[in-house]
């Protein structure tokens, strides 16, 4: 009996190009047509089964594209620590697929061995900061690599938070040695929901900490007649988020940028078109930077 769980190839860096969140609906199209996108990203939780189609296709797609693992289940904000079983499963995927980037969220999703399958907001307190630093440290020690931590989209704030989110995230990254995954749609969603300035948030993150950008669509709901934005990853990136993306690139330079689409997933051409649009803005940002420098 032969084992197929050999590392596929050495980790290649993720280029400063657009990548796309890999969905099972698109496995065959991608293998058949090998579209010109820079890289793919997957949720490792969807590959924690032992074998079958998910591994079959990911193995083959990984042979042609750099890969990023973007976790949703590690629960770095849990007061009772990260799950050893989950971390070991993640480590096995890192060893097998040799991703260029591994990221997680500034959130929590597990308490007392119950996994809640959602990204829940962390209160921005000194205690929570210490818990996150400890959990990120544990994860990075086991994975033997730094994580990127993503800023959350949130729908509520708690009364006892006393640190601003951007400051909390930057301090976490600096203390733990992690990087930051800047989700521009999340900045926009949370800025609208909680009334802070999205551009100021983006400019407060030190460039050297940012390793990746995320873009996605959101939905708009209402509470007491007031709009509330929901980060559902179920539509095209909106004009305001494209503008904010260009602003982020002008502030921080060209960065690997992911198009995420997780609900009501459309046929591949729509995701490819969103990736092309992101690449056009990446190029535009480079031209703007050169023009500013030569002015």
């Amino acid at each position, binding site marked *: *009996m*032969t084992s*197929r769980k050999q590392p596929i190839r050495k980790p290649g860096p993720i280029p400063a190009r657009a990548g796309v969140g890999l969905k099972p609906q698109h496995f065959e199209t991608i293998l058949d047509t090998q579209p010109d996108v820079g890289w793919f990203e997957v949720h490792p*939780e*969807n590959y*924690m*089964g*032992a*074998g*079958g*189609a*998910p*591994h*079959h296709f990911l193995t083959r797609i990984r042979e042609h594209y750099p890969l990023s693992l973007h976790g*949703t*289940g*590690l*629960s770095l*904000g*849990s*007061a*009772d620590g990260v*799950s050893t*079983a*989950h971390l070991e*499963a993640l480590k096995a995927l890192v060893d097998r697929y040799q991703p260029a980037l591994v990221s997680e969220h500034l959130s*929590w*999703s*597990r*308490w*007392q*061995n*119950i*996994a*809640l*399958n*959602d990204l*829940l907001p962390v*209160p921005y*307190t000194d*205690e*929570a900061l210490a*818990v996150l630093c400890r959990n990120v440290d544990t994860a990075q020690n086991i994975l033997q690599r730094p994580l990127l931590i993503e800023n959350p989209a949130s*729908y*509520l*704030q*708690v*009364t*006892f938070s006393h640190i601003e989110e951007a400051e909390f995230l930057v301090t976490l990254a600096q203390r733990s040695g992690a990087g930051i995954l800047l989700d521009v749609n999340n900045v926009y969603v949370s800025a609208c929901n909680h*009334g802070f300035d999205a551009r100021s948030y983006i400019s407060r993150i030190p460039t050297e900490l940012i390793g990746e950008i995320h873009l996605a669509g959101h939905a708009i*709901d209402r*509470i*007491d007649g*007031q709009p*509330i934005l*929901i980060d559902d990853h179920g539509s095209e990136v909106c004009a305001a988020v494209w503008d904010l993306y260009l602003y982020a690139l002008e502030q921080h330079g060209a960065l690997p940028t992911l198009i995420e689409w997780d609900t009501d997933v459309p046929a591949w051409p729509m995701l490819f078109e969103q990736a092309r649009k992101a690449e056009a803005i990446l190029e535009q940002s480079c031209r703007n930077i050169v023009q500013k420098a030569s002015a």
Partner: protein
Amino acid sequence: MTGGQLSRYQAAFQSSLLGEKPDAEFLDLVVKQSKNDAPARVGIYRNNVQHSLSAALADLYPVTRRLIGEQCFRSAAVAYVRKNPPEHAAMVFYGESFIDFIAGYPACSQLEYLADTARLEWCCHLARNAGDAGILDPSRLTDIPDEKLGRLRLVPHPSVRLMESRWPVDDIQLENLKEDVGIIDLAASAPRHLLIWRDELEVRVIALTGNCYRLLAALSRGQPLDAAWQGVFEQESPDELAGMLGYLLGLRLFIDFRTEGE
């Protein structure tokens, strides 16, 4: 608040997500932007959690869902999710105990075959996600000397599952995955001895004869061929054994073999 504030916050948030309704003390911790927005804000997370876990069950049990209808399935799934949330963040490990839950769900109690239908769906799910392994080339068995054949132990593919039911759940599954469901005469159907496994990437379900099922079950438990065979038939019947074994090998169910002493 003193030390342990984060723990208390997470415990209260969790009970607000899975409990009857959001915890009143927890709602007091939410920053209010309008008079009554706190329950609606918590409600977004509550809906995300309950909906995403119910959706995972709906993907896992499409036939069960079709048999009881969208609305009934959704009510059952939400009730299940709130009482039986997952322990692992990866959904591939979630939902086995939904089989017993749906069997005892009052609105479905008249559908006696429902639990076995759900069990077959769980077996298919396990087969779909079981480990990969290369298939045994049957020609390798021709090198085994005759006197050692009785001690042959065959190693099944990790995806192999066996399931008995007094209902024709294989036909129920097949029909309910079609757009137009055919009629199945439950009274005229014989009990089923089902083999579920993954061949390449395709999950297959087939009904075996009782004897073939018992032989495969014994082999899957690691019994050598002679003991497995004696457990199935009182009288020796080498032709029948050869036929049955050839059939099972042809299904590409085994990945390796051992003969004692090796």
